[in-house]
């Protein structure tokens, strides 16, 4: 079965006819040519497909495109403004937060979503009492970025980049 939907991606509207089984990730990559989200595993384990859906970070491979009809999708391409990189993207460049770059668009979207979660006061997910107010130290960054794997193992610099981006956003 096919459905007609409207996807709003990085501020642009795309009317689209999709097979109901199509994931958001496939719709972005195969239909719209928005290729920054990557298909690392297609089952929620790697985070390379992370995008912001109505402002929240999610795995594009675990959402059906039809279920995103009318929703706002932001990918790494849509984070910056007027040719300027988003502060999180800039921090990844400044601190070598990648090697091959395959996981980077997902890392960057995840970090943007994560920093907003921290700003909104969402509690720690690390091994601390749930009631503690979040402090974004390195252990906490690692835990909060745990949904994004990096096959190159650039984690040390990813943590540095996220910490730096957090400083800028303050």
């Amino acid at each position, binding site marked *: *079965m096919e459905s007609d939907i409207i996807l709003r991606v990085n501020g642009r509207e795309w009317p689209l006819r999709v097979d109901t089984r199509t994931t958001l990730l496939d719709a972005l990559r195969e239909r719209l040519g928005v290729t920054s989200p990557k298909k690392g595993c297609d089952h929620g384990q790697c985070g390379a497909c992370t995008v912001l859906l109505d402002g929240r970070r999610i*795995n594009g*491979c675990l959402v059906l495109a039809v*279920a995103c009809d009318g929703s706002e999708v932001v990918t790494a391409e849509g984070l910056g403004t007027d040719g300027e990189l988003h502060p999180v993207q800039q921090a990844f460049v400044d601190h070598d937060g990648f090697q091959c770059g395959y996981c980077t668009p997902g890392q960057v979207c995840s970090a943007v979503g994560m920093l907003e979660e921290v700003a909104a006061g969402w509690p720690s997910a690390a091994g601390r009492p*749930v009631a503690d107010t979040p402090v974004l130290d390195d252990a906490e960054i690692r835990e909060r970025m745990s*949904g994004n794997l990096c096959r190159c193992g650039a984690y040390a610099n990813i943590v540095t980049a996220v910490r730096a981006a957090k400083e800028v956003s303050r």
Partner: protein
Amino acid sequence: MDFLSPSTWEEALAAKSAHPDAVPIMGGTDVMVELNFGRRRPPALLDLTRIPQLRDHGPDDGYLRLGAGVPYTTIIERLRDRSPALAQAARAVASPQIRNRGSVGGNLGGASPAGDAHPPLLAVDALVELASVRGVRRVAAREFYHGPRRTARRDDELISAVLLPEPAGPQSFSKIGTRNAMVIAVASFSLALDAQARTVGTGIGSAGPTPLRAIEAEKFLASEFDWDGAASPSPATVTRFGELVASAARPIDDVRGSAHYRRHALSVMARRAVSWAVTDYRKEIARCA
């Protein structure tokens, strides 16, 4: 594959009744994996994401009513005082991205014995609300799990909510896995004390064909616990509790761990849970004094 996308609960129930083989999809974090890998080819999907009440939560006659579609993130962020054990379990699920979508209703719908929500639901004696065009019924979580991935839910029913009793004592959840994030539990354990009724509740995950209770252990701790002063139980009592929890499990050897290891892990988690409960209970007494 048909895609049914009701916008009201009544429409959803009517659709489930007309298409009992339609697979409900909420957060999609289980369903999508099955679809992407062709493990399941359902004739129809029933999308529940457009039904607002599934994401509601609030008080309901002494219970916290948690809509089946409330994502884990919301439980951690907003409901940790009202559902401490479930909030701790929610923190342990998968990754932040998955916690933004995944729900307790989906955990119950799939009913994997490894699902992290089940042990707390058993320990606190929660209710599962099931609805169909025929009506609404509430089933105790303790009666909900029938067999491997089989539950009390009938084909024409949807899970509308879970109802969590007001916490009446210390609660905890712990889970063993190879790392902190993105692991299916090797074994998990939840403990809830009810200081008013002077009862103990337990839940065991990932160590049997279904989530389990350790009923003998519950009775034993309820009779041994110092409900007035929370004096530390003797090491022998704590050890015995751990043994009783481990012996209630019905684990198998699999890729994640051996049956022997799972029993061992459960006894360790159970012993720790008792010491946390004693500490929390004392704090509570001190606050009330």
